[in-house]
């Protein structure tokens, strides 16, 4: 359609055109259309909003929450990679872990959860120092934050092959252990000043475990010996929300994925009290299982489901620092020093937490042992078994296999056909490698 009625129409057209254009121009320039695009959506917390004293408790609770997520994830993955659980699962990643195959693309979650927990604690401490000022010193929140920073670094050191911080280069895990010692050392005075002996003891235990990682046995024993055998500092879980749940329960009891079938822990029948289980493939046990077994097989559909009862609820805590571990550290240190008597005494001390366990009789063992881990040496085999059972599913086993260069790593099999040389630690993840220019893309 075109204009056909001459100049008058054109003039009117121009007027309308100018009016329309003016309307748009006014909107874009005068009415502040830019403001139209300023939208504040609820639900997220801006960084600056946390810089207030009444946000500090929230901050530390977040550290606790992130640490619990990290702690359970690394314990679960470590259980699959090691000989604690069978990879009798449906998903391919856990099945690969069960074969001892740990690919960098399969451990992004573990690496991210580790650093989120570490960063949230470490950066939180920085923020607390700025916001609290004088109230930072000796504050129980300050002490707790230091414990999470130290514990996160410790688990990094115990489970990874290498570490990296803040986009830096790959470094030996000793750096993580040293950071754990540093954070714990700085946190202990705050805990003591705040009267939180539990936190002070937990950080002392972290120092002990970190020194084990560094091979500093004297320092390890020195840190461990003040901690009672029945002491525990736990990563806490709850059935309150899914994120707070201990994921072991969902995997073992709900999904029935990882079985204890063919693991050293399942070799004890009846079960060792440290590694309780229900044999869901046994009709007699099915009848009395509480909670009931869903079925007789694990989620791979072929493996008998031997259900671990270590974590029988969604709220079951996972020990982050424990007195029993301290005794076993002392036992290993003694064994390395040739003190068999003390070693067995410390192991018996750890076993005392389970009254039904018989005491180890020194007479059943030789008087001497190798100075380093030696498979086949009765005393080292004993310590191996005591640490395996005593610290079962607590995120310690993979580190033990690694530092001992355990023979299980040489093609050990639970159910899935293993790779010839099983992984003994978790590599730096693919996402870190691809986004951190200081680390090569391939291990």
């Amino acid at each position: 359609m075109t204009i056909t009625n001459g100049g008058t129409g054109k003039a009117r057209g121009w007027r309308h055109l100018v009016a329309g254009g003016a309307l748009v121009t006014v909107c874009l320039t005068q009415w502040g259309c830019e403001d139209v695009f300023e939208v504040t959506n609820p639900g997220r917390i801006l960084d600056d909003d946390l810089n207030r004293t009444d946000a500090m408790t929230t901050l530390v609770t977040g550290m606790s929450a992130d640490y619990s997520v990290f702690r359970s994830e690394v314990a679960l993955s470590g259980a699959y990679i090691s000989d604690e659980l069978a990879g009798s699962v449906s998903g391919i990643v856990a099945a690969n872990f069960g074969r001892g195959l740990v690919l960098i693309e399969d451990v992004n979650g573990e690496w991210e959860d580790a650093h989120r927990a570490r960063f949230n604690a470490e950066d939180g401490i920085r923020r607390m120092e700025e916001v609290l000022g004088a109230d930072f010193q000796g504050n129980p929140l300050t002490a707790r934050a230091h414990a999470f920073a130290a514990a996160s670094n410790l688990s990094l050191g115990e489970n990874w092959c290498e570490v990296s911080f803040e986009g830096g280069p790959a470094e030996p895990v000793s750096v993580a252990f040293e950071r754990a010692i540093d954070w714990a050392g700085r946190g202990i005075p705050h805990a003591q000043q705040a009267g939180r002996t539990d936190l002070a003891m937990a950080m002392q235990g972290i120092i002990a475990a970190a020194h084990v990682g560094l091979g500093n046995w004297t320092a390890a024993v020195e840190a461990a010996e003040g901690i009672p055998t029945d002491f525990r500092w736990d990563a806490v879980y709850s059935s309150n929300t899914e994120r707070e749940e201990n994921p072991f329960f969902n995997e073992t009891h709900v999904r029935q994925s990882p079985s204890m079938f063919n693991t050293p822990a399942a070799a004890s029948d009846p079960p060792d009290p440290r590694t309780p289980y229900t044999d869901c493939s046994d009709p007699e046990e099915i009848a009395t299982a509480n909670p009931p077994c869903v079925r007789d097989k694990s989620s791979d559909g072929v493996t008998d489901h031997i259900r671990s009862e270590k974590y029988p609820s969604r709220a079951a805590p996972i020990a982050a620092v424990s007195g029993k571990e301290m005794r076993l550290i002392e036992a290993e240190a003694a064994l390395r020093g040739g003190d068999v008597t003390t070693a067995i005494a410390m192991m018996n001390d750890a076993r005392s937490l389970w009254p039904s366990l018989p005491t180890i009789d020194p007479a059943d063992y030789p008087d001497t042992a190798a100075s380093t881990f030696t498979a086949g040496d009765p005393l080292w085999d004993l310590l191996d078994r005591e640490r395996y059972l005593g610290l079962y599913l607590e995120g310690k086993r993979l580190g033990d296999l690694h530092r001992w260069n355990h023979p299980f790593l040489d093609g050990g099999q639970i159910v899935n056909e293993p790779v010839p040389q099983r992984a003994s630690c978790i590599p730096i993840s693919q996402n870190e490698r691809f986004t951190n220019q200081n680390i090569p893309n391939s291990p």
Partner: protein
Amino acid sequence: MALLLAGSTALSAQQTGTVTGEIVRQDTGEPMGSVQVSISETGLGSLTSASGRYLIVNVPAGQHTVQAQLVGYQTRTQEVTVTADGTAQVDFAMTQQAIDLEGVVVTGTAGQARRREVGNSIAQIQAADIENEPVETVEEVLQGRTSGVTITANNGMVGAGASIRIRGNNTIAGGATGNTPLIYVDGVRLSKSTPQTDPDQGSIGFSQINANVSVLDEINPQDIDRIEVIRGPAATTLYGTEASSGVIQIFTKTGTPGAATWSLTTTQGLNQLPWTGPNDRSVNPAGMGLHACNLADDPIGSIWFAPDCPSDGDYIRLGHTQDYNLSVRGGMEDIRYRVSGNLANEQGVIAPQGLEKWGIRGNVSFAPSSTLNIDFNSSYGTRDITWLPDGNNSEGFTLNVFRAGGGYVPENRNLLTLEADNLQSIQHLISGINLNWQPMPGLSQRFKAGIDYFQSEYTQEWPFGFYARTLGLRMNNIWQNRTLTFDYGGSWNADVGSRLTSTLSWGGQLFTEEVVQITGVGQDFAGPGKKVLDSGARRNVEESRIRTVEGGGFIQQQVGINDQFFVTAGLRIDGNSRFGEDFGTQAYPKISGSFLVSDYDFWPAWWGSMKLRAAWGQSGRAPGAFDALRTYNSVVGDNGQPGVTPGNVGSPDLGPERSTELEVGFEASMLDDRLSLDVSLWDQTTEDALLSLPPTPSGGFVDEQVVNAGRIDARGAEISSTFSVIRSRDISWSLNGQFSWNQSEAVDLDGLEINFGPWPLFAREGQPVPVYIGDRLQNPNAVGVDPIREEEVIGPSEPTRTFSFGTSLTLYQDLTISTLFEGQGGHKMFAGTLWQSIRRGVWPSCLGVLPQIQSGNTSDLTVQERVVCDPQGIGFHDPIYDADFIRWRTLSLTYRLPQQWLPLGIQSGRVSVGGQNLHLWTDYPGLDPESVEDGGRGPMIGKASYYQIPIPRRFTLSVSMTY
């Protein structure tokens, strides 16, 4: 005065007459509604009613030319002599036009543009194209009828939405809906967001469904007048940010002048599940356990024996469907209306899956003055869907049936999974008002305002005593999505001298979208019975409210020379609340040209018309609502206490990605308008591509951060053609075909590789987006050696070729047979169901060789034979196969009932029998290459198959009456 008026009226009556007539299709003889009939010298005109009749009164006595015009048909003219007080009969028989260069299309400006002026290819589907077809959704309407558009059905459950891609993938942002085109219904923009029913969504969700609904499925195909598909950024520039994946405009039917015309269509149908799994019944006698679950004594079939197998021996059924549509249209010259309603009940192929739906629509147009027209279009639809737990979840029905005792239910009692209720209730309102004001010839202005309101309530209830959670659980997800559209546009046409025409267009749009999602979970009930959330001893809730605002303005100038050569240049400037605070606005330019070379005298007569065209333009896509901000997330710790965790790193410079496209092509008709050809070549580059990347995790922030960092290229071609083989009054036979090809490449991903887990789908530089990559066998045919695997690029998950072929034959204007075949190919698919079945030793095709593998006696097997059937040996990357397929989409037979058969008062009637998805040809060894996980998972932009229900056949019988 009264006398004067009476005298004037009498004089007028003496000097005018009436023109009336009937307009029918030449090939079928069917009356045609909505044909514009005009007497050009007088400005008088009318639209035909549904019965094809028209009436023009007060026509000055004398000689006139009557013109009948309808988009897609050749314009017809007849000379007529009107006598005072006389009635002239002028009938027309309309012939479909191969290339309708005078037809108008919507291009984003205030006015409509004739095809000859447009420098892009715009596909159109008319109501007449589908009126006899057994289609029930908009996606089915589009399927195979528009080149460059790939529709994937996704899931065989009724109510499951299909996914739409136009020209493949050109972004890896936005998750499952990132490559979804913008959709407008009568000018009202629909939200791209859909409620997710996926177990991975949210932190407290337990949803069991891997199928998503589509926002299009409340639109009744019988209400559709036409659909226009605008492909690629070169054509969608004026639609601004979010339009780079194309635009689909749906226009619904409007009223026609004349007496009220009622139309009633009733449809009865059956959904039937094809044999599931390998067709060889000797190895798959139970159809993977769905078609027989009682073969306890069969040596092979007993694998799928289930102790709770229904008494009829299987889990499937013939799903009955019924659909009723009633509409009325009519009006006068100044007021027209169309009101319609539909009611449907569809059973899926496995009880209790099914849906019930109803909807109403009212379209009213009125013209308060000769320069102002107001349209009010409104529709409301509701659907209640009963889902079947399918896909990737351990409490899924299909997963447990197909795993044949190796699943999660105790003792293979698969019906336990159906004790769960999975219900979704949807309400969808689309309403808009459209004002068109033509204050003077040549100047038109348009104002639109509309709302798209979509609400979904999804509830899942595991009853007290449910096998997987004995104390029970209930989840309720409320999703509300409200999108407001405000659209102003103006257009001014002018002649500049005798040869030049000018069209200046301008306008601005504002869109606001608010998505509210509230999810509650209550678990651990005190006892049996139907529950509400607070029946649970433990309760959790999540809430999300996201509002986004997008707006912008455009200006466009078109110059035409001799009505043969047109150049159009335009610019759009956009702002968006999702841009970073330092980013500002984004400008998208465009330029296009079209050249009617066939209008020149030298052009051969046998080659009817030829339009050359080229277009260059840009469009974009905005990041997510929170992507630009540095945020922390609320978490819970220490047994219910509030905490915070690092969330988004943030990027204040974040802006949209920008897609630039060059498109060239032509549209031609020849052989007396029997043959049409529409060919397009296009090349796209998406720069500043939005990449959702993990920040360096050792920095502590681990949520993926969207950054402008990448570049994705894509190119392709589209061809569509129709050929009228026979065009006589007694026999009409036509062929049509479409072919499109596309290829994408991630040129720059900032050196990164992105995995769209859990499947081995990646974005990798130099490869299509997304692409399957994995360790593949290098010595598949070797015998007696170990498998050798190396990483290789396997192929894209998105089809790179789509094609269709259809034909329609009409005999004696009464009987029409039409059919359509569609194929997709060039892509790969992860056959997840096959993979998990092999791992459990229950894949039918492997049962023969399995004993040999398990005994270790494999020396005479090739590596391929041994590995792909070995539960321990099959790798995660082995079951990725060519997913090419051809599907017999539709077959329909329609008989127009003779008038003498019709009861008194019935103007026309017809009976149709039809079938859809009648047969599948494929070498893909999994269940169904089109039954995939896509859209049901937020992070996914690719496709993978994992325990979805195969696409069923549908048979329908329809009876339509108009009176």
